[in-house]
């Protein structure tokens, strides 16, 4: 049995009410969206807020819509199941639809939200454990302790960014709409994450994520998501790979991107991927395209060194980096995906 520590629950009906409550409570408060990350973390005593502010009744935070300029706007409280099933998302943003469909299991996708996924806390096999378990091993930098069990002598927490939708949103150039009681701001998702496992995002404690905005994708946009995990039914990623290829009318790659997650505290964009793929034509010169893909897979292998922060053999995860990079790019080119073992 895992009990929640006690707190006061607030269930505001409007955004201004929620923002005012958050402003009053400051760092004492936790925001509850679907609760599928927050509540297990509270049960593990990783967080002990005195006030929990639930967004479930706040109007205007759900839904998926195409804006006049062709951008796709998704409310932060939109359930992942809705993102995964949306015909608009599947057509325009295939990597995002595939990633959302592979988060957790069906009940959790029904309750878990896109905003909560973007703001998912970092994960580590030494910290996502009960207080009892952690006290037996000895606490670590992320919570209550002074050492890191992953990197001996390390002074920085390297718990892994683990949200499936984030790499997809990064390849798509998403912008986060963030509100505080006195202002709103727009933040490119690329500038949102920092390589610090304790808190890996630039969000003030009094701010709410209200919306995710994805600019209109190119006409020839292709995308796919690849996910390595222990059990295909429910587990967090051991590795997540999002690929983007924008093809010209002639079928030539004009823009490309590859972002990986579940490595360190921030997702990682593979440097040089876009240059290696630009100019190749998967439909007309497949052999040449595959050579470029292999080059990118090799870049990914060299740039990404998984740490023993997640369960399982991290060297094997490292071996899987080029495999999933290659397969996900090929799936994107073919208009297929996800790359997933079940």
């Amino acid at each position, binding site marked *: *049995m*895992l*009990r*929640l*520590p*006690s*707190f*006061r*629950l*607030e*269930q*505001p*009906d409007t955004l201004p*009410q929620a923002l005012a409550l958050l402003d009053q409570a400051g760092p004492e408060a936790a925001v*509850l969206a679907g*609760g*599928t990350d927050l*509540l*297990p973390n509270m*049960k*593990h005593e990783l967080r002990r807020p005195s006030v*929990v502010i*639930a967004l*479930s009744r706040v109007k205007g935070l759900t839904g998926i819509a195409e804006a006049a300029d062709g951008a796709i706007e998704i409310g932060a409280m939109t359930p992942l199941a809705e993102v995964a099933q949306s015909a608009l998302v599947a057509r325009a943003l295939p990597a995002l639809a595939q990633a959302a469909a592979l988060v*957790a*299991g*069906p*009940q*959790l996708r*029904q*309750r878990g939200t896109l905003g909560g996924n973007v703001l998912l806390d970092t994960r580590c096999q030494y910290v996502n454990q009960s207080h009892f378990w952690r006290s037996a091993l000895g606490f670590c930098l992320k919570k209550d302790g002074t050492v890191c069990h992953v990197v001996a002598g390390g002074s920085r927490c390297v718990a892994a960014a683990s949200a499936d939708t984030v790499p997809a949103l990064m390849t798509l150039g998403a912008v986060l709409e963030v509100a505080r009681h006195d202002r709103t701001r727009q933040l490119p998702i690329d500038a949102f994450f920092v390589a610090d496992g304790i808190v890996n995002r630039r969000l003030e404690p009094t701010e709410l994520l209200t919306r995710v905005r994805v600019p209109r994708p190119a006409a020839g946009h292709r995308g796919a998501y690849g996910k390595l995990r222990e059990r*295909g*039914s*429910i587990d967090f990623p051991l590795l997540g790979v999002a690929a983007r290829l924008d093809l010209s009318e002639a079928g030539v790659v004009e823009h490309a991107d590859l972002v990986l997650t579940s490595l360190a505290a921030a997702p990682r964009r593979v440097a040089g991927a876009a240059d290696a793929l630009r100019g190749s034509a998967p439909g007309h010169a497949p052999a040449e395209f595959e050579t470029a893909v292999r080059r990118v897979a090799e870049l990914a292998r060299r740039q990404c060194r998984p740490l023993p922060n997640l369960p399982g053999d991290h060297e094997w995860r490292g071996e899987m980096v080029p495999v999933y990079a290659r397969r996900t790019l090929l799936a994107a080119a073919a208009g297929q995906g996800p790359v997933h073992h079940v």
Partner: protein
Amino acid sequence: MLVRGLRRKIGVILQLQVNGDVHEVDVPDHWTLLEVLRYRLGLTGSKQGCDKGDCGACTVLLDGQPAISCLVLAREAEGRSVLTIEGLAPRHVAAGGCGVDPVQAAFDASGALQCGFCQSGMILSAWALLARNPRPRPEEVRAALAGNLCRCTGYTQIFDAVARLATAGAATAPETSPEAVRD
């Protein structure tokens, strides 16, 4: 908000609609729906396994959708309809059927359990699937039950139970048919 705060201070309690009945319960803010079901309402059919979202043993239907009740605050379930395993047979009888719900009968007929700990959650996930899709394909059954873990059966008999209903098709879908599927 203010009204709600006052209500609570003067001791007005949480109203939960469970299996068609309205219950008034006095619970602290930090109690989960699962805790209220089990320890206030005595509905122990929803199981407390991992208590953190991994196993699905605590699955109930919230407005008809499978939900992990160990990760839902009881107060967040206010105003929504909760269906637990205890509610299936009475619902079936109220709709003119007899005995247990067809999904329960199919699990029984297929021997889809050993210890039974996963069964209430499994049945509710299967029930919700069949209510929206009376003839699911095998891969749809697997996907719908992916959030319910079974440590005993190896899943084969569980998939068999749902296949039994799926083959029978719309005629025996839990929403539409009063007739149980029985051997």
